[in-house]
């Protein structure tokens, strides 16, 4: 179907998944109020199930986006394969995040409609962020996502740790947003536009002139994004916020929020700001190295499994940055593929942690995992799969993702980054394996309470996550093809031609045409 923005209906079509999800959020908000009436009681089962169902509907709408073809205009929202693939990752994170949280909400007596509404709205923010081709839209969607997640972080009102985490996250998040906004303003000053499709030639011009505003703007933009993806040295909030937040929210946050920020970063930095690569590539190189080294070392010293996983998720941002710094098509595809696997393993591992921790989130120490593998064999096997994948061990998706990133780095001539990646992974082996050895090599103390059998939604999503990880490890062909298509679709425009990307795209012999990509750069109605 062709989209030319002559009819107003086209705007709805191109935003269909976001529209579906926002509508569902509003309906749930109202419906929940009516079914609960005056009392502050639990929501009915159907509220949660509707929320999960609406995510599936949004995923279907997202698939429909592939049939669209934008024929004119430089819209603020992209409709390329990259957006669709990224959307599937966000929706996956949301779907499993919701299913994993059912048990927890019931256990903590927090089963309120607001939770689902906030999650859905945050997801809308993520999806728009992944699609934004205008810096103003980047800012708006980032705020939509972040504000919802601030509230989710503080959702467990009875727990001071949760409130503290929410406040911390909010303050630093607001700080980061200010940086981002400053950066956008400077970029506007340098180029005279916020539309990314038009910004490219002007960035090239400005870079050639040595425009200070461009460098300042890019730098501030990097700082803003650095906070959101929790890259060192902007990561200070992450361990505290991740540790204090309710664990299912942590999983959702670590997976979804990071994926969305990375999707935007890939689009803005490695495509639109590519002409100014010398402004950011070296800086980001150091950020990537630090983000791989530091959190991995700190994680070694953590005895709280949740906090350890929080540091490990910072380290994973470092691995993902390798794909960004490589700045070639392979790097973009690799980062996207890794994000997909990362989502599954992060959600899964945090879910196991909250299940073991029990009511009030108290038993999170390493020793609380002793003998878990023998007491709950299936939960143990699932956790081993999640941890091996986080460590990047075959035959899991984490391994294929790491190899993907390594190939991107080597192709871009960044052998130093590749070596840093593997050496820091080695450090990570130790703390992931420590959990495994607690789970299997030690017997549980007699008096320790055994974690109960998880509920059906938990079992279902843990099984799907584990199976997905193994599938992406053993038969990654489909995933790689999709990631390749998405990575290429970002640069499939005549005006944007980065030399590095051009060289590598030719070599990946995937199926030829990209399904949906804006093909025209003529002036359109937006602006």
């Amino acid at each position, binding site marked *: 179907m062709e989209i030319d923005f002559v009819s107003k209906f086209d705007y709805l079509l191109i935003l269909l998944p976001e529209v579906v999800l926002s509508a569902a959020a509003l309906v749930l908000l109202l419906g929940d109020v009516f079914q609960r009436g005056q009392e502050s009681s639990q929501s009915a089962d159907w509220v949660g199930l509707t929320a999960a169902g609406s995510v599936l509907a949004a995923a279907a709408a997202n698939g429909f986006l592939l049939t669209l073809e934008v024929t004119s205009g430089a819209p603020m929202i992209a409709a390329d394969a990259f957006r669709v693939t990224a959307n599937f990752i966000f929706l996956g994170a949301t779907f499993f995040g919701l299913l994993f949280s059912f048990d927890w909400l019931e256990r903590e007596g927090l089963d309120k409609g607001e939770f689902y509404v906030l999650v859905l709205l945050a997801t809308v923010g993520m999806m728009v962020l992944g699609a934004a081709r205008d810096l103003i839209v980047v800012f708006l969607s980032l705020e939509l996502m972040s504000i919802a997640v601030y509230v989710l972080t503080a959702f467990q009102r009875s727990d001071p740790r949760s409130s503290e985490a929410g406040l911390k996250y909010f303050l630093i998040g607001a700080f980061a947003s200010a940086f981002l906004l400053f950066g956008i303003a400077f970029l506007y000053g340098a180029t005279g536009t916020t539309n990314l499709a038009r910004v490219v030639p002007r960035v090239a011009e400005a870079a050639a002139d040595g425009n200070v505003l461009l460098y300042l703007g890019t730098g501030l933009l990097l700082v803003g994004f650095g906070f959101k993806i929790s890259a060192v040295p902007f990561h200070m909030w992450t361990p505290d916020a991740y540790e204090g937040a309710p664990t299912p929210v942590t999983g959702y946050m670590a997976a979804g929020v990071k994926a969305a920020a990375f999707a935007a970063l890939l689009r803005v930095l490695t495509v639109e700001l590519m002409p100014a690569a010398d402004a950011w590539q070296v800086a980001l190189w150091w950020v990537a190295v630090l983000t791989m080294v530091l959190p991995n070392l700190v994680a070694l010293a953590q005895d709280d499994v949740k906090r350890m996983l929080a540091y490990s998720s910072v380290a994973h941002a470092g691995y993902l940055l390798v794909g960004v710094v490589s700045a070639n098509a392979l790097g973009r595809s690799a980062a996207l593929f890794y994000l997909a696997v990362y989502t599954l393993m992060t959600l899964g591992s945090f879910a196991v942690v909250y299940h073991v921790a029990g009511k009030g989130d108290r038993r999170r120490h390493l020793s609380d995992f002793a003998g878990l593998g023998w007491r709950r064999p299936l939960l143990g096997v699932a956790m081993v799969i999640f941890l091996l994948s986080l460590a990047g061990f075959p035959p899991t998706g984490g391994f294929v993702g790491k190899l993907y990133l390594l190939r991107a*780095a080597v192709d871009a001539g960044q*052998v*130093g980054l*590749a070596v840093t990646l593997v050496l820091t992974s080695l450090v990570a082996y130790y703390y992931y394996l420590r959990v495994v050895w607690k789970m*299997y*090599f030690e017997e549980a103390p007699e008096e320790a309470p055994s974690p109960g059998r998880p509920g059906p939604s938990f079992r279902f999503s843990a099984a799907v996550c584990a199976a997905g990880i193994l599938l992406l490890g053993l038969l990654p062909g489909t995933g790689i093809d999709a990631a390749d298509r998405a990575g290429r679709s970002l640069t499939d425009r005549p005006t944007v031609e980065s030399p590095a990307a051009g060289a590598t795209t030719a*070599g990946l012999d995937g199926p030829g045409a990209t399904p949906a990509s804006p093909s025209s750069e003529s002036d359109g109605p937006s602006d």
Partner: protein
Amino acid sequence: MESFYSSHWILSVLLALPLLGAVACQMAPERKAGQVALWVTVLEFALSVPLFFTFETGTAAFQSFGAVPWIEAWGIQYAVGVDGISLLLVLLTTLTMPLAVASSFRYVDRHQKAYYTLLLLLQTGMLGVFTALDLFLFYVFWEVMLIPMYFLIGIWGGERRIYSAIKFFLFTAVGSLLMLVAIAGLVYLYYQQTGAVSFAYRDLVQLQIARGTQFWLFGAFALAFAIKVPLFPLHTWLPDAHVEAPTAGSVILAGVLLKTGIYGFLRFGLPFFSHAATHPAVVGTFLTLGLVGILYAAWVAAVQPDVKSLIAYTSIAHLGFVVLGIFALNPQGMEGGILQMVNHGLSTGALFLLVGMIYERRHTRLIEEFGGLARVMPFFAFSFVVVALSSIGLPATNGFVGEFLILLGTFRSHPVVATLAATGVIFAAYYMLPMVQRVVLNPLEKEENEELEDLDARERAIIVPLLALILLIGVYPNPFLDRTSASAGDLIRRVEERSQAAPLGAATGRAELAFDGVAVLPDDGDGGEGPGMTGPVSVETGE
């Protein structure tokens, strides 16, 4: 039948059967899991034996070869095959596994299902390493092999099992990760030269790699393999892992796992990076380290109070010999090295099994606790002496054939090294014979030892096949050597040709890997000396 064994199906079945067996183990009742595993491994062995007879001698081509596209976007295949280098190792694996399973029946009394499942997964991993002919596939098996072993040591091991398991895992992982970067580099070079992405062995082995780059890539591969061998000074994980592992774990570690390192050199290190691997400095380093390993391990072994750790150190010495044979870079040394890998698997495997048997009776492995066992356990004593002699390398046992060929080959290219290594054989007698004497001979002084029962039917069934093979290879090694000679000779020829044909570097317009920041010299000085020096290497190593 014939076509089954000449197609990849035999190898695919060998790879898949243990996986199915693992599933069966999970479904079997706790007490029956061992039986299931035994039947699976025996069937596996029975299936693999005809491979030895259908294997065509006189050709270095891969046999039972098959390749199926797997991840097409990256040119990754499921490709398997055997040649003279891997055939004996495949058979050694299928032989070792039923013995390892049978030896566990008494020792393993908890979590039996998990134990036998892991053993079977380990078997698939090891067979995969020896048969995979695609670098992605190889790497997956190479790493997957670690996980079951980690659990086997960590769950069913001795006192310091957690320390040993982690140490084993981390040590072996260091090298593997750098190898992964090198694999990505190889794939990139192949892409630069041909415009296609491939992980297939036959594609990458033909890659022309600039000489300077070869050293980096060879270094990454060699580190992974040298840790696994283990080559001095990277060996420290081995005594810990061996001593703490359950008997079956030690047997598999010594019998099969250590060979994956040597196999990696033969299959990848030498043919891929021929120039780097035959560079006098590299050859000298490996010969020196091999030699140091032989002598050092012998001295350390001599003072071990624990039988098991003594045997663990002998492993280092034996593998040192194998390294000498390989880096002698001539057919005798190469064939001897390959045969000696099998020999070491048989005799050290048997030693660990025997030690496991007395440990189950006495719950100690200290040499001083025994003495005079020949009186109460005559069959055990007989086996122990035969196996120990084969480990020393006495004529008429398999060890003699292997070590003799290795020393012959080494002497041809490096006489001084060979002479020093020969003293290692004397040291072997020095640490092995006193131990044998103190365990099975000497007067029977300890009361606890008076009631010991001799090996029962199960234990004899485990040991007899190994004894038979030890003597068979000792007196009639030809069937084994015939099957390796063509591949060994071909490998030597190819390495010599390719080491001279390797492009000099950027000057010739060949692909070059950019190591960012680090300036890679495309030609580190030996270009001026001409290709002559990379022929049959004839330099003394720096002692």
